[in-house]
């Protein structure tokens, strides 16, 4: 006797039913989950609103699941609040940071991170990710073309081109991309390139239960973020709320030095460094031309000195 199967999954039945939803993926699923139709040629990104993050790490898990990323070995209990992930790596493309700012509740009570207003305590959580910079240091540094800009304006490593030279690693101004010692290639968040191609919302954004991570076209996200910051400041009394990674907004932190808009940007409530982000990074490739010119000028000087020394004197043949 053959194994019984549910009738819905019999291929012939699926075809017979025509557009039966169970016969294949839902077309343009992102429209249902994020209200966004994913189309090539548009600029997509993440808005990560840290005031909504509850530190559940669903984004970390969803990312690992979808991208088949292994756990970090060995597992270490860091003692740094609830953060045992510590950093983004070749196999960790979302990382939830936990900051405990001690808050004094009253004169006789011990300072604690969980005091503070009902809206937000001194316990800050932030899901970090590759920023998918408008001008990406890693991409500009890559000598093989393994790092490229996709039709969604995201920055992705092609593992079948990468030869593991490792130059993108120190180039990244945010310490995101990393080499994997197992396969000898560089890896980082792809903004779920494969999912976008299939019309799906990226895994982390879809899994986020509080909408702290929002996916969409960059102009929409910018508008939404500006509204959110205004509302945080005016209605929720969070005067410190600001945008990190948006040019022209709140000092444009993170977008400095030629980097431009970060396509994955953040609503923060404390200085960037508190979340392990630089306040004014710069694009490494800006140093190429002045460096080369200085080097060539030096060697021109050496050549002139050598010419004088070799040509001068009385020992001509």
């Amino acid at each position, binding site marked *: 006797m053959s194994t019984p199967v549910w009738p819905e999954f019999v291929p012939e039945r699926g075809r017979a039913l025509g557009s039966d939803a169970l016969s294949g993926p839902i077309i343009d699923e992102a429209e249902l989950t994020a209200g966004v139709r994913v189309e090539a040629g548009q600029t997509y990104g993440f808005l990560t609103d840290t005031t909504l993050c509850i530190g559940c790490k669903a984004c970390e898990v969803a990312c690992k699941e979808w991208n088949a990323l292994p756990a970090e070995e060995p597992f270490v209990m860091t003692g740094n609040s609830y953060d045992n992930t510590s950093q983004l790596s070749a196999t960790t493309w979302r990382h939830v940071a936990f900051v405990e700012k001690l808050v004094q509740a009253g004169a006789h009570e011990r300072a604690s991170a969980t005091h503070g207003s009902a809206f937000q305590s001194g316990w800050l959580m932030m899901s970090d990710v590759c920023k998918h910079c408008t001008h990406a240091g890693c991409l500009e540094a890559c000598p093989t073309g393994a790092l490229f800009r996709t039709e969604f304006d995201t920055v992705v490593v092609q593992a079948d081109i990468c030869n593991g030279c490792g130059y993108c690693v120190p180039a990244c*101004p945010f310490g995101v991309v990393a080499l994997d010692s197992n396969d000898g290639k560089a890896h980082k968040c792809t903004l779920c390139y494969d999912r976008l191609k299939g019309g799906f919302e990226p895994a982390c954004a879809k899994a986020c239960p509080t909408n702290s991570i929002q996916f969409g076209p960059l102009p929409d996200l910018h508008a939404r973020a500006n509204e959110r910051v205004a509302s945080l400041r005016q209605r929720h009394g969070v005067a410190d709320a600001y945008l990190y990674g948006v040019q022209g907004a709140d000092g444009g932190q993170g977008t400095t030095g030629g980097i431009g808009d970060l396509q994955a940007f953040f609503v923060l409530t404390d200085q960037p460094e508190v979340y392990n982000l630089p306040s004014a990074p710069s694009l490494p490739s800006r140093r190429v031309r002045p460096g080369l010119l200085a080097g060539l000028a030096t060697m021109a000087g050496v050549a002139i000195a050598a010419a004088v020394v070799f040509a001068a004197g009385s020992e001509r043949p």
Partner: protein
Amino acid sequence: MTDPGGERAPYGRRTVATLGDVPAAQRPATSTYYGLPALKPSDWGWLIAVYFFIGGMAGAAQVIAQVADLAGRKADRPLVARGRYLALAGSLVSPVLLIADLHTPSRWYNMLRIVRLTSAMSIGSWTLFSFGTLSGLAATAQALADLHRAPVWRTVARIVGTPAAVAGALMATYTGVLLAATSTPLWASVPRLLPTLFGLSSTSAALGALSLLLPHGRSAQPVRRRLDLLSLLSGLAEVAVLRQVESAWRRRALAEPLDQRPVQLGFRVGVRAGTAASLVIHALQVLGGRSLGPLGPAASLMALASSFILRAVVLFAGKRSAVRPEDAFRMART
């Protein structure tokens, strides 16, 4: 707790101590995330330090050989030949070191897949490729000229030698750009000085190597004197640039990795003392107008050693500076 700035903290009746509540002058210099690195360090190690040294020396040797050739003195011909052979030897060793350092060495050829002018590594790959090819041609012509005493091959070597020397000038300096065009604080803080320092260090190393490679007889003495004078000039410039680099690091409070062992030992003994000692010997030889016996080769060896140690010190100190979040934040601050 009242806000020193006079404004109420925004979090309702309870007060939150944020960095923004503290006047700028009283704020800690940097706040970090549990002291965890804000940047990733480069994965490069000794292979790359050796490449920086050998590639730089080969490049500078090609420049010196070509200038000596164009100056046209017959007495300098042994120097020209040795410079071209040294350049070829260096350009043969270099790719081996670089490919061995790749994490996927079988795909080394992808380095020549594209030209990307924003990438110092891409520029370097093409520089090494052209330098190797041109050095091979120049050395072959030089060998034919040496073997057959045929002037035509000497002319060919001289013609090929010019583009080879231009590529050599890049070889001697681009590795400084390679480091500076990253986000590593120690390297990125001196984008112009680092290539200059590497170029001068390459020149000192090439002069030292050529001095050691010249024939030992009396005939080579005038050539050696000229190399001594060049070594003196190059060494003086190197000491001046090194001081500038170090003071730039200290001024921006990025020099801490230089004061940690074992980098500290390499920097103080290998780089500073080594450069100074070979400089003094060269100065004595130039001013005295005569050879100081075994001190001459010793000065050449010290120049070579300090050139290598300089690359190692800069490389490893930089890797340490990348994982110091306070340095990273200090660099990335308006």
